[in-house]
């Protein structure tokens, strides 16, 4: 194994650690802002894994959409829906911690057993490649309808969000 491969593997391991500890911070902390920070760190780690999966474009989109837009939106949600004391105190009340841990460990074991018993068979032949022009071409020819539909869904969601958040006429928040 050459030196640069060691470095690549070490970086890969670092990205996995980012995903793990970011996710743990996101679900275990008492402070809501720290939970959003953990989510952002975890999503950055997933973006790093996308690089290793041969798609730098998806990694950039992950950073742009998730870390850039969704996390900021959640911070706005904390800003408008919570008083400062709630931001500090709410998070875990410990009522369901045992049940949550039990169910998630059971699901984890179930899926791990299923994973270890499955033999994956790669497809015999591959068409196309990982390049961006091919991706854009199939987005505009083969998957054109889905592409247009997701645009409509996004538009409807944004208009609906504005309508929901604005409330009745003359009512002030």
């Amino acid at each position: 194994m050459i030196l640069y491969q060691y470095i690549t593997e070490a970086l890969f391991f670092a990205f996995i650690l980012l995903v793990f500890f970011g996710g743990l911070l996101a679900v275990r902390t008492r402070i809501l802002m720290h939970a959003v920070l953990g989510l952002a760190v975890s999503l950055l780690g997933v973006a790093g894994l996308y690089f290793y999966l041969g798609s730098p474009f998806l990694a950039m989109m992950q950073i742009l959409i998730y870390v850039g837009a969704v996390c900021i939106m959640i911070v706005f949600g904390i800003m408008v829906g919570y008083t400062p004391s709630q931001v500090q105190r709410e998070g875990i009340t410990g009522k369901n911690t045992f049940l949550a841990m039990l169910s998630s460990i059971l699901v984890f074991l179930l899926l791990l057993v299923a994973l270890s018993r499955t033999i994956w068979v790669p497809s015999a032949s591959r068409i196309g490649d990982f390049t961006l022009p091919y991706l854009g071409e199939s987005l505009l020819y083969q998957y054109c309808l889905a592409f247009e539909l997701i645009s409509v869904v996004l538009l409807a969601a944004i208009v609906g969000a504005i309508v929901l958040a604005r409330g009745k006429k003359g009512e002030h928040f």
Partner: protein
Amino acid sequence: MYLSGNLNTYLVVALFLLILGLYGMIQHRTFIGMLISTELILNGAGLNFMAFNRFLAPNPAVGQIFTLFIMGIAAAEAAIGVSVILAVYRRYQTSDPEKVDDLHG
């Protein structure tokens, strides 16, 4: 055997994201916490699609397109979620999911 060239590595990481989201979804008592857990689960799904796309799929564009669509759906879901939190806060003057129980029998 390299860790980054193995399908199972990615699947285990995605599985970890899924169970973290599940855990947070059951245990958190805030709307924001549930929203964050949903994002984690959606990311686990996206990572799974990308991993299968890289190692098994016959056409490597399909997984990337699917992951892009998941991102779009997640963005729409976050926008709707935040405005629902705002509407609930305005109506009930609370952001505790336990207290929003008009339909509770």
